[in-house]
């Protein structure tokens, strides 16, 4: 217990410096700013704003990125409540009841409850990270190459469960991501692989290039495609931000339940904001006395999922920070950002760079507090932002993405590759492939190959090493069980129901 307070004190000392507070504030502000824009999710927001953090010191960069992440997530909720255009899949369920509330003139109440719920969930999840982090990291420090390989298999299988479409296609995307990750010089032999003789490819394809192309550029194309078919919804006015006493009384238990669901699901590989908010919504609907209120402006339908997605968003930092394994695409991007800063994510971060680790944890709490301040009093500003036409936005996004990519290495080639990945991302949308598993595979590819080779060398070429070692065996069994669960018809059906909730 004493350790916990000592650690948190260290964290707050780091996060509380004027510089880091500023980075945190700018991050949360920018994240909200971009996240509020209709049709731009947290992943695209992060990918787009990543280049701004390159010049910062590692702590500052990661604190700012974390701020951008929550900001974008919360901004997406505002958009879905006010104009029923969820910018990302995790606020799809918020739109159901949140927008219904807005139409009844209760938009302010919905926004306030979403903010309060998110803040509460953020506080709980911060404590969860502080408590669960050290023991997990100390377990991970005993891991050898075989355990790491199995852990990554487990993480990737989790990503398959997360994917909403076909399981086989999600696995294919992971494999494709692993292959893309191998592009460049092979570390062990020094031979170049898949480089087509292009010198810029010797170091591999940049993470930012892939993520901006697949998520940023491809998203604009699909948004424009959709915009040409559908018109825009009206923006609902916000009258008073004070939730009524009845709203608060009904929302509190939902906030508690949502926080619990979110924290648990966030830690699991493949879990994350999307799964958490859907599960929380389903839970609220199941235990409600009158389920028919849902979809017509039930406050629990906002409070539960909003708390859950924020708790999960934060809890998903746990496996990333302690094991170095990203559990979803957003965390894959954070891993990419850490590597750009010269930090290899893994259990050693906590022991070798405690200031960095605990600084990020403490900044999460501060960031959540800032979000409440940014969002509630400034809601008028965000509403004005919602009125900016997309025709003005997307050229600006193209410019910022291009400048960001170029400035990473001052390389025109990177910009060209981004264009290529944009086309690829659109092709994926058309063929029904999800790009998120690909990104996970891409980040883990080189690590996985390295650990596989090392494990094989250590065991003198005996693949049984993965089964002989208990932790490795446990992780592989867990992966198989997870895969079996998804493929089992009963679960497949409920999984489809959960993801189809958005159509209703």
């Amino acid at each position, binding site marked *: 217990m004493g350790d916990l307070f000592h650690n948190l004190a260290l964290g707050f000392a780091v996060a509380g410096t004027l510089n880091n507070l500023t980075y945190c504030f700018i991050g949360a502000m920018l994240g909200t700013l971009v996240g509020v824009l209709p049709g731009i999710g947290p992943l695209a927001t992060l990918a787009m704003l990543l280049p*701004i953090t390159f*010049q910062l010191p590692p702590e500052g960069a990661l604190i700012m990125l974390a701020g951008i992440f929550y900001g974008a997530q919360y901004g997406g909720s505002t958009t879905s409540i006010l104009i029923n255009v969820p910018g990302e899949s995790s606020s799809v369920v918020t739109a159901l009841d949140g927008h219904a509330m807005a139409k009844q003139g209760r938009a302010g109440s919905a926004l306030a409850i979403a903010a309060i719920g998110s803040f509460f969930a953020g506080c709980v999840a911060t404590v969860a990270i502080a408590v669960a982090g050290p023991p997990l990291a100390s377990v991970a420090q005993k891991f050898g190459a075989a355990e790491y390989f199995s852990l990554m298999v487990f993480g990737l299988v989790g990503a398959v469960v997360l994917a909403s479409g*076909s399981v*086989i*296609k999600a*696995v*294919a995307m992971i*494999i*494709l991501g*692993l*292959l893309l990750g*191998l592009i460049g010089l*092979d570390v*062990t*032999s020094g*031979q170049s*692989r*898949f480089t087509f003789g292009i010198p810029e490819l010797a170091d591999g394809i940049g993470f930012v290039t892939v993520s901006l192309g697949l998520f940023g*550029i491809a998203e*604009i*194309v*699909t948004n*424009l*495609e959709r*915009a*040409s078919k559908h018109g825009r919804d009206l923006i609902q006015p916000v009258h008073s931000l004070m939730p009524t006493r009845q709203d608060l009384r009904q929302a509190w238990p939902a906030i508690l339940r949502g926080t619990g669901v979110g924290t648990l699901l966030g830690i699991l590989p493949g879990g994350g904001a999307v799964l958490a908010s859907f599960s929380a919504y389903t839970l609220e609907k199941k235990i409600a006395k009158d389920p028919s209120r849902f979809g017509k402006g039930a406050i629990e339908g906002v409070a539960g999922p909003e708390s859950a997605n924020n708790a999960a968003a934060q809890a998903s930092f746990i496996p990333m920070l302690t094991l170095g394994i990203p559990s979803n695409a957003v965390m894959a991007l954070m891993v990419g950002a850490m590597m750009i800063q010269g930090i290899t994510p893994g259990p050693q971060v906590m022991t070798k760079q405690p200031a960095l680790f605990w600084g990020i944890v403490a900044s999460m709490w501060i960031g959540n507090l800032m979000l409440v301040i940014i969002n509630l009093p400034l809601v008028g500003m965000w509403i004005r932002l919602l009125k900016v036409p997309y*025709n*003005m936005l*997307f*050229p*600006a996004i*193209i*410019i*910022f993405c*291009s*400048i960001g990519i*170029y*400035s990473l290495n*001052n390389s*025109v080639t990177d*910009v*060209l590759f981004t*264009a290529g990945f*944009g*086309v690829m991302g*659109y*092709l994926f949308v*058309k*063929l*029904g492939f999800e790009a998120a598993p690909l990104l996970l595979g891409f980040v883990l590819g080189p690590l996985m*190959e390295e650990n*596989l*080779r090392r494990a*094989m*060398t250590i065991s*003198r*070429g*005996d*693949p049984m090493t993965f089964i002989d070692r208990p932790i490795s065996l446990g992780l592989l069994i867990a992966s198989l069980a997870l895969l079996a669960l998804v493929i089992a018809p009963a679960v497949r059906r409920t999984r489809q129901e959960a993801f189809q909730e958005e*159509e209703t």
Partner: protein
Amino acid sequence: MPRIRDPRELAAGLFLILVAALALILSDHLPIGRLVNMGPGYVPRALAWILGGLGVIVALSAFTADAPADVPPLTEWAWRPLLALTASILVFAFLLERAGLVICIVVTVGVAGLAAAGIRPIQSLLLGGGLALMSALLFVVGLGLPLRLWPEFAG
């Protein structure tokens, strides 16, 4: 000849098989090594075979199950935004070091504007000018990125 019930799955499967074949051809010259001492070709080739296998499964599923009702037909492509946006990024890459940031942004925004119907040239020009000014202030003056603002001959 069985009937194709889900063309999108067939296309998706063929795409995977194509990529797998490409990966196999490109890693052909890399030594495989043995399990105990894997060469640089071991993992790429293993992944390529798995990918190809998955591609076959996906392609075959096109004959066994119908397409879900909400899947749009494969023939609908948003060519206009796709081509205009891709072209705009290529233009950005071509002009940035040659013409400097300001001209580059104005032209890029102009090309990107072709992606959506209803953007008039004057709007594009104003937006491009505004973004050029903003980027110059933010990236060059503010963040100090080493970007040239104007073409070389203009100083």
